[in-house]
């Protein structure tokens, strides 16, 4: 069974400080990992996916298969980063996208 764990429900950081959202997963094969984001009064949308290996809005995430983690990081948080973030996992040849419980990030001025 596949499972995604986001241990932090709430995360509060000051503007300009680094921010890291933790995501751990369990899956027997090689999964694809994603981060989705929902800003206030906006739709849930894709932030980034590990196979793209790109930085979006200053965020990066590295898949660590040894630690089964896919933490999301940004070196200098901005107020517009305040949002709900979901980590998600897709199994190979599987229709299902499994989401974590989500982390609410608040960036304070």
């Amino acid at each position, binding site marked *: 069974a596949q499972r995604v764990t986001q241990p932090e429900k709430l995360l509060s950081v000051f503007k300009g400080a680094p921010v890291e959202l933790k995501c751990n997963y369990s899956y027997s094969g090689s999964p694809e990992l994603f981060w989705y984001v929902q800003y206030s009064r906006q739709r*849930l949308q894709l932030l980034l996916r590990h196979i793209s290996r790109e930085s979006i809005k200053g965020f990066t995430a590295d898949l660590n298969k040894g630690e089964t983690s896919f933490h999301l990081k940004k070196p200098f948080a901005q107020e517009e980063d305040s949002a709900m973030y979901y980590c998600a996992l897709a199994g190979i040849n*599987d229709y299902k996208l499994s989401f974590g419980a989500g982390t609410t990030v608040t960036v304070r001025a």
Partner: protein
Amino acid sequence: DVKVTQSSRYLVKRTGEKVFLECVQDMDHENMFWYRQDPGLGLRLIYFSYDVKMKEKGDIPEGYSVSREKKERFSLILESASTNQTSMYLCASSSGQILSGANVLTFGAGSRLTVL
């Protein structure tokens, strides 16, 4: 520019009522999904459809049914609403002939249902 439209943003229903949630996408996507979003639980898949008239159960299908008579439209039906179905319901769609969780989802704005 709206691509996935959910017809109702807010609904208030009474226990036992039949509830219809409608979702329409204009991207010609093959796959459509219904999730419910609850604080502390994240998104849980209720049903999905990979083709017209095709449907598959997700993780929490009990108390729900779906209908997909046209490619662009996917309806979620609560046959007899209960208070534990009070939630935010999100519709999503994805492209791809192969139904894969890796296909990027495009979400609707959500329908917040309150069952009294």
